[in-house]
């Protein structure tokens, strides 16, 4: 059954999810760049971790972040009763 529309709560939820997404985005790029000399001391499978974060690690997190945001918001559309008409 369709939920009653609650646009205000929906937007508040969206803002929270957006902030969380951006926080992780910030950590895996900018904080990782900042600490890359230290991270490089850890070497896994031949990869110094500072280098790895820039070359692959952050990218994997970006892809995950966007899909995670998309699935959560698509579900929230229905939970808060603001989904698109089919």
């Amino acid at each position, binding site marked *: 059954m369709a939920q009653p*529309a609650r*646009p205000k709560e*929906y*937007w508040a939820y*969206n803002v929270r999810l*957006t902030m969380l*997404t*951006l926080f992780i*985005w910030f950590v895996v*790029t*900018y904080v990782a*760049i*900042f600490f*890359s*000399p230290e991270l*490089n001391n850890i*070497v*896994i*499978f*031949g*990869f*110094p971790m*500072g*280098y*790895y974060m*820039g*070359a*692959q690690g*952050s*990218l*994997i997190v*970006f*892809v995950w*972040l*966007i*899909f995670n*945001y*998309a*699935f959560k*918001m*698509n579900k929230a*559309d229905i939970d808060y009763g*603001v*989904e*698109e*008409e089919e």
Partner: protein
Amino acid sequence: MSVGGKSFLDNLAKIYGFYTGGFIIFVILLAIGEQMGMSNAAIGYTYMGITIGLYAVIGISSRTAKISEYYVAGRSVPALFNGMATGSDWMSAASFIGMAGTIFGLGYDGLAYIMGWTGGYVLLAVFLGPYLRKFGQFTIPDFLGARYGGHAARSIGILAAIIASFTYLIAQVTGVGIIMSRFLGLDFKIGVFVGLGGILVCSMLGGMKAVTWTQVAQYIILILAYLIPPIVMSYKLTGVPIPEIMYGQILQKIDAQEKVINADPKETEVRALWQKSADALAADIKGLPGSLDTKKSDLQAKLAALPPDAPAADKDKITKAIAALPKDAAAAKDAWTTAQKAQAGVGKAKPIKPYLQPFARLDMKNMLALTFCLMVGTAGLPHILMRYYTVPSVKDARVSCGWSLFFIFLLYFTAPAYAAFARNEVLSHIIGLPIAQLPTWMANWAKVGLVSFKDINADGILQFYELTIGADAIVLAMPEIAGLPYVISGLVAAGGLAAALSTADGLLLTISNALSHDLYYKIIDPTASVVKRLAVSRTLLVVTALIAAWVATYKITIIVELVAWAFSIAAASFFPALVMGIWDKKANKAGALVGMWLGFSTCLYYMIGSRFYGVDWWGVKTISSGLFGIPLGFIAIFVVSRMTAPPSQELQDFVESVRIPRGASKGDEAGMTTGH
């Protein structure tokens, strides 16, 4: 079956599956052909002919007379396929050909491009994509016009869209010309115009609909072409064909090899010679104007001292050397200082800085700034943003952002592996070879100027700082470096061509839409009929393409730099106004105008100032000029909007409506509404 029709949309996976399989069979047939003696030129022409022919077939069978199909592909592109189209729309000649080479040269610091050009999609996904789809019009200036009211914001949007897209377009057309001339042996100018035909045939008849389905086809070719050489290389080097995982051990080899090279006395000798030439240059600059006169009189004395029976070539050489001298002390100072800067930038007098060490070539501040500007620029480029108008729903727009990045990710996370294999090959197998025994690929690429080497210390052996490899050579030469047959070289060229053509298509459409839809239809003649609008749009498309090709034939070297500028311009002018339009209900017209203007002009001021007139704010490099314009744009919109009257209730309701998915327009009906 018509492209874009219902049965086409229902069978997308099958159709593109067959297409991919067919293309692979085609490559295998060519490989057999090569074994049976097919010439390199024939392979090159077959690749170009078949791929451009394929794009043309898709482009022509997607012709349309419907406005919504022409501008937004009928809003019927599934999320995954829009992701593929965005991938090839986004990945240009620079990503395909230049990215791995940039990392090859810059090491860790080159990763700013990798993170910047992918992380921007996170911003796009949470700040803009889904909301633009809900808004559901045709162009990015459309949104500015609707949100801020009147023609002023729309006009700035048109201007910024054209400036950012046009510089970018010229670089793509140049890329097409280079690939055509290198692999087909055509004259560069002819290559440009042949490529232009390939671009127009995809976009003119079917607009966005044709461009979308061609871009999907181009993505498949470019990703196959990009991944195959490093997979083979990885298998050869490590026994496991997964380059993205296996290059870790290669990184360790690079690190070890750099230490060996730095300790080699012959290398020290070469570095000392570079130091000497740098010192001589510095002394010349210091000794101006006397040093210039001495040089001139020395050469003249040499000329006079030539015996009368000396060959004409010797005389010519000295005469030319005299003519090449700067004409006065001021010109000499300019030229020599530039040369000095270039030399210091390469740092050939110092030991190799470790490939894996952060901030060896770009300090931390600039690395952070560059990454940030590239990210925001990515999220502000109109030809990417408008792709999110083409999906069926807000839900699809969100998921499509994920697919877009996924398909881009496949290439970008392989690029560092590509770079590492190439660097390992050069350090371990090329450096230290006798000059006479260098592999043939080096001579091949030296011919076109992408590789150069000079035995500075005349010991007959190649040292590290005697070799220069252009960034563009890495990807193009990899098949030869890896010892693969020519059929793979041709495939890489076809991939590079696909990358350049697909981006050019998207850019061309953005420019002609800004002119035909935003300027002509929305501002000049809102009563124009559908037939007339499409005719205007198609005409502008051809005219824009011709102008771009004409500019490209001049081969202006600053173009590569201008592309980086386009990012900062897009970041500083579009991004704040678009984001605030959705996220700040109180943002109003005055705020947006001041913000866009301030962002744009600050960015432009710093670009031109730091590039040509020595302006320097906290040591930020020209390429990150957007760093100042972006925050200023945001602050200006926020502050000015609060100092002036708030937007009308109607506009505030409009913001509310953009924020929730319910009520999104579907397909054709969007063509009927006019915004607010």
